[in-house]
């Protein structure tokens, strides 16, 4: 029974790691190909949430499923989960801080652009 649970944990964990690999690959391609700074920030977040948070959860599940590690697997799983939570909290906040600073300092061109809700809220000023 416990071996079945372990197999499921390892399988799900490996699936999450594969998702992470895909996200990292997609993020690196997007980082090169997207047109402007704010669009490339999206690639940054895909890489840090999809490409780091998800595989870290996967690593935690794999570690939890590895019976041969003995009690040490819980140290590894716990470390991975804590790192994942920190990554999840800080990735969004960091990207937000960068985007806000660049937008307010007008440091990056806003072209091509679909919508600028911030400018619309302030009365539709163009820049």
């Amino acid at each position: 029974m416990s071996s079945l649970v372990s197999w499921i944990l390892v399988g799900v964990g490996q699936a999450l790691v594969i998702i992470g690999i895909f996200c990292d690959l997609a993020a690196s391609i997007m980082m090169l190909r997207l047109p402007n700074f704010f669009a490339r920030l999206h690639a940054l977040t895909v890489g840090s949430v999809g490409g780091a948070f998800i595989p870290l959860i996967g690593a935690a599940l794999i570690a939890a499923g590895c019976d041969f590690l003995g009690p040490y697997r819980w140290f590894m799983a716990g470390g991975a989960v804590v790192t994942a939570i920190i990554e999840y909290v800080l990735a969004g906040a960091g990207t937000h801080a960068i985007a806000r600073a660049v937008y307010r300092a007008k440091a990056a061109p806003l072209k091509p652009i679909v919508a600028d809700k911030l400018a619309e809220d302030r009365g539709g000023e163009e820049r």
Partner: protein
Amino acid sequence: MLRDVAFAVTLVVFIVLLAVATGLGGLGPLPPPRLRPLAVNVLNTTYNPYYAARNFTADAPEAVTAVVWDYRGLDTVFETAVFYGAIIGALALYREVSKRVEESRPRGLSTIVKVSTAVMVVAIAAVGVSTAMHGQLTPGGGFQAGSIIAVAPVVLLVVFSKSFLEKAGVRYAKMVALRSAALVGIGLAALAVAIAAGAMGCWGYVLQNQPKPDAPLGYPPRALDVPSGGSLMVFNVLEMLAVAAGFTVVFLVLSTSEKLAKEEVVGEEHGY
């Protein structure tokens, strides 16, 4: 395009050359894989409750911390004093500015960043304290813990503001007092066994941790059933306080606004 290719080729050639040179023995003769006598001695005595009636042991599973605060404890005490003096040097440069309070009230970064930072600051402090408290069990110790904790005020300075930190109680005078108190504590902890032995009329050493054959007093080897390394835990916690407060006060002083700093040196261009 040509530049990229040239860059890639250069990188590959460099790595291959480095690998060949290393593989052919470019690092010189490698050290033998067996332990040297000094390391064997340290490993035999660092945590050994059974060895020769506990005559020479630091009672700490972490050999590095045991060496730093027990085997060569006097050296580390002086290192702490040097760090203390170095920070005094930095503070002396800002001695007039550091006593004044900023009038401007910067708003800091946005709410999203502030909330996530508030969560992380608690985590940073927890990691720092546990690094110090587990210094005798796992890698790390007082200095590392203090450096980790000192990250928290830096992040708070950037994300919130200096006046926020000062309102929260992280002030110049408090931090200077805290690090001085921690240094005095390290000195007292170093002398504690010798003083107690003198009062009880037996032999004792400065910086003594565990009892020795001719000096029966020592720090308790366990705290809550976990090896505490005797004095190592005390030293680590005090060193953490000294280093964290020292770095914090330097960061506080360095973040003084240019306006305030210029007011203090006004008139220097006229030579007075």
